């Protein structure tokens, strides 16, 4: 509760926190709040400019853009959320373990993560999607793997400092096993930085998921995705420029809100960062 109080003192963070909550509400309720069926084509209604009937207009197949943007919100939220979950579930235990055990295993894993970190996320993700195939699961896996090294590093770093704490030695002194110590002492004490890292990863994933689908490597049509919608709208940029408005604003808002909430979270957990700005 103390945490929420401190977080809400940051007005920017609070505002975009609410925006982010709204975005997720839209994502959750997408199937009920879309005004039209986002997949229903209607060739009598192609390229309609924004109107009261179709707020964001209709595309080349006569599909309602607003409905498509709303459904795409759900897909983006799901893909990025699962990708973060994947990166956390795979990266954090590895980082905790090698940080706690140390030795040659630690050195080996760190060198491998260093190698993975050399590649820009998008490049790694493209290679992985090409290997796995451009499906929703492929994108989740590719994004997750590409950011897993970050989670390994963060988890290892905080584990290194937590393992020097006296309460770890106290647990050893009563006969606790390594597995028990990692689960009951290390994990609760490193969870805050992990949550911050996850929130900072969210905007990166939102952008990269869209970038992949812009390149045709993401979710396949007819399922709507912001990047893929933007890609399609480029062809009609002169006769139907309004097609870009919806996906652009949605992408912009989601990324901005996720970024600022991530920063605010980090400052709440580590207030020293704030003064430096």
């Amino acid at each position, binding site marked *: 509760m103390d945490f929420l109080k401190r977080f809400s003192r940051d007005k920017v963070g609070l505002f975009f926190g609410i925006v982010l909550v709204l975005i997720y509400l839209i994502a959750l309720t997408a199937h009920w709040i879309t005004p039209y069926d986002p997949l229903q084509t209607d060739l009598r209604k192609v390229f309609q400019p924004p109107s009261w009937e179709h707020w964001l207009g209709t595309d080349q197949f006569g599909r309602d853009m607003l409905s498509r943007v709303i459904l795409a919100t759900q897909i983006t939220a799901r893909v990025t959320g699962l990708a973060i979950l994947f990166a956390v579930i795979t990266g954090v235990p590895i980082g905790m373990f090698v940080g706690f055990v140390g030795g040659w295993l630690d050195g080996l894993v760190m060198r491998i993560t260093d190698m993975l970190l050399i590649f820009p996320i998008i490049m790694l993700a493209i290679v992985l999607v090409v290997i796995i195939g451009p499906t929703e699961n492929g994108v989740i896996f590719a994004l997750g793997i590409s950011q897993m090294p970050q989670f390994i590093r963060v988890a290892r770093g905080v584990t290194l400092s937590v393992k020097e704490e006296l309460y770890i030695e106290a647990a050893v*002194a009563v006969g606790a096993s390594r597995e028990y110590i990692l689960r009951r002492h290390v994990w609760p004490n490193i969870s805050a930085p992990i949550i911050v890292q996850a929130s900072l990863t969210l905007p990166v994933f939102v952008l990269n998921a869209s970038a992949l689908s812009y390149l045709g490597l993401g979710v396949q049509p007819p399922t709507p995705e912001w990047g893929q919608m933007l890609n399609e709208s480029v062809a009609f940029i002169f006769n139907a420029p309004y097609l870009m408005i919806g996906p652009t604003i949605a992408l912009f808002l989601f990324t901005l809100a996720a970024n600022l909430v991530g920063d605010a979270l980090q400052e709440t957990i580590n207030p020293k960062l704030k003064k430096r700005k």
Partner: protein
Amino acid sequence: MQAEEVLLDVADLRKLFPIRKGLLQRVVAEVKAVDGIDLRIHTGETLGLVGESGCGKTTTGRTILRLLTPTEGKVTLRLPSEDGTTAAHEIDLAQAGPRELKTLRQKMQIIFQDPYSSLDPRMTVSQIVGEPLKVQGIAHGQERADRVADLLQSVGLEPTSMTRYPHEFSGGQRQRIGIARALALNPKLIVADEPVSALDVSVQAQVLNLLQDLQARLGLTYLFISHDMAVIRHICDRVAVMYLGKIVELAETDELFGNPRHPYTEALMSAVPVADPGHVSRRILLEGDVPSPVSPPSGCHFHPRCRFATDICKSEVPTLRTLNGNHAVRCHHAEKLTLQGVESE
């Protein structure tokens, strides 16, 4: 307290920390933190281990408890059989395997110096105190909760504090929580590693008295590590003085304080302030710093700082000799020196 039964027998315990350098991490030198310690702790007594910082007293305590693996030596824990009919059970702690060690941890516990970082900030008091019972699989559910409440009561804390977190308590209260945790498994031996050094003087006395009460009530044996001569004198039956990883003197408390036989002990004692304005202090100032335990001086480790040092001290390592009765000292000239003790209280 003159129980003659030996609970813990430490023989030639050594703990070296290698210093590694370079790409291949070659061992270039070793820190001799504990350099051949022999100790016997009797059931029910409090043995003090005193020395200045860096002399290896904490490492000794941790190595005995196998929180650190000894480089060499034997640590024998002698556990009397439950019904008293069969012979005592002896276990070498230094050799115990993981499973055996886990069971043995029920018999020996540690109280840490720092009551702030020794309690997990994410756990409630009942989780902290109940953890030993949980890890060892001794008590569950309501039984565990009852035991935790009992333990808290026995260290003078309200059972209502069970649901609170460590940061809600003062240093003295936190140390009580640490003590309750150490008692949870009904240990025989408790290594108290500077248990009061981090506390206010007024709180120190309370915690020391609590430790003495608990000892009388539960028949505990303490290895009491401290740098504070006044505290040591107050609580210990026998005292071992450590210098640079070795014990230089070991005697009963009154004997050691009244009649020190090692120049280092004398210097340590002259540093204890006396609460008497008319007292003319005759402080013996030691020159120089504690030598590095990486390359200790030749012969007697203390000779560069000793005002009685002669040629033999530079060349020959003195052994720990027993003088009259139970007074052991590691000095070539112990018989010839007249050293200043402290008047009895």
